[in-house]
């Protein structure tokens, strides 16, 4: 069984958003900075006021690596992990879709792919935006 995220904790709005094909992250009600995963206080201004906000489902690749050693049952190696910075500034680890590791580049523009892996869990993956590659 592959590792599944807990979709019921503080990040529940994020996981619910993915079911609806939205990328929702926390936005500080005071300074406006976006953040994910959830924290009660904003790390920038320490305000406790926040809301979950749908952001543009697009970003750029910052770096990547290819796992050859298996750490989890249900995830076959080799597989690629990418580090993505969403246009709103939030960083994520994810997997690329439809692009080989050899074609990845720093700054590659990507857009969200919503991957329903179970009836409850959708993962946020990324494919190159049109016109890239």
């Amino acid at each position, binding site marked *: 069984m592959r590792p599944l995220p807990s979709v019921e904790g503080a990040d529940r709005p994020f996981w619910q958003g993915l079911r609806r094909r939205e990328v929702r992250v926390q936005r500080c009600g005071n300074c406006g900075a976006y953040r994910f995963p959830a924290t009660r206080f904003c790390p920038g201004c320490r305000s406790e006021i926040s809301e979950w906000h749908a952001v543009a489902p697009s970003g750029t690749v910052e770096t990547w*690596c*290819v*796992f050859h050693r298996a*750490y989890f049952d249900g995830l076959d190696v080799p597989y690629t992990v990418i*580090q993505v910075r969403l246009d709103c500034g939030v960083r994520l*680890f994810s997997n690329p879709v439809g692009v080989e590791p050899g074609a990845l580049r720093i700054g590659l523009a990507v857009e969200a792919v919503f991957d329903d892996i179970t009836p409850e869990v959708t993962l946020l993956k990324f494919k190159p935006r049109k016109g890239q590659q």
Partner: protein
Amino acid sequence: MARADSVAVVGVGHTRYGKLPEYDAYELGLWALNEALADCGLHFEDIDGLIVNRIPDYQRFCEIAGVNPSYVSITPGQGRFSGICIETAAALIRDGLANTVALVYGNNGRSGGDRYGGAGDTYGSGGGGQWFAYGMTSPGAFHALMARRHMELYGTTADQLGTVSKTFRNHAALNPSAVMRTPFTLADYHASRYICEPLHLLDYCLINDGGVALILSSGARARDLRQPPVHVRGYGMATQLAASSFPPDDFWRTPMRAAAARSFRAAGITHSDISTLMIYDNFTPTVLFSLEGFGYCGDGESGPFVAEGHLALGARYPTNTSGGHLSESYMQGWALNLEAVRQVRGACGERQVKDCAFAHYMAAAPVVTSIIYGRQPS
């Protein structure tokens, strides 16, 4: 107790390294402490400060060791804490809170089955569980991400990473205590399997059991002890912990520059005075980032710098002359500090750096430490 004008490492000790399933972390620490006390001729009763690292419980350790230090503390089993403990010990002695501080490290991770990746992964900021569904886990992968970025930005090559690993293995071949002593070629490096590409098996540190202990005291007291004192001439620390779940854009250069500047200022010397480098080598790319951040080469120039051979014994900056974490022993910075002390003592035998007046220990991580050891108090 009086404040101290200078601080010195007066005793060092370590266990055998490798698989030691009959010892737990407490016993490995106590074994090393016995060795360190014998090294300097001090006794358990002389220890008035104690900091344990990776040992699970300070109270249990003190009970087993039969000591009642006036200052005691405990630190988590992360490699960045070796430098933190040494800097703390130096500050305690300078401030007069303790006169003789024992730093004791015990690691039974090999026999205890510690894993660095997968469901129990605790690396990073609160652990990486958030990203397991995407397969992201392990400190190795974190450094693989950084290495790939360095390669893309600066043209750093696998050969350059392999040169770091190969060089340290050549050094380990001269170290009877090292776990891995058989030299290898760059072809062997390339043939070693990928763990997390671009990093091969030979880019990863060892996992083994062992213990290390250091005894620090005031420079005044150090003069009367068995070994030549090795003075803690300067130290600096800086952190980059905000947003540290992800690799830093600047390869930790900002905190490295700050820590390096503090340590060099305190030591009153410059890079050109340094004889040997001890660089925290959890993975080979960390060595490259450190050479840049601590100022031994320009930003992005570390790949060609190592390829030119500067880290080898006999070259300008012999580095990790013990073999480091990659080949000697996974003692999370402690054995590198021990090696720095032995180099400055001139006690390294075949692998001794000539006229070793100053050794520089450095660790690149979200907590950066920089320690300069010297033969003279100032």
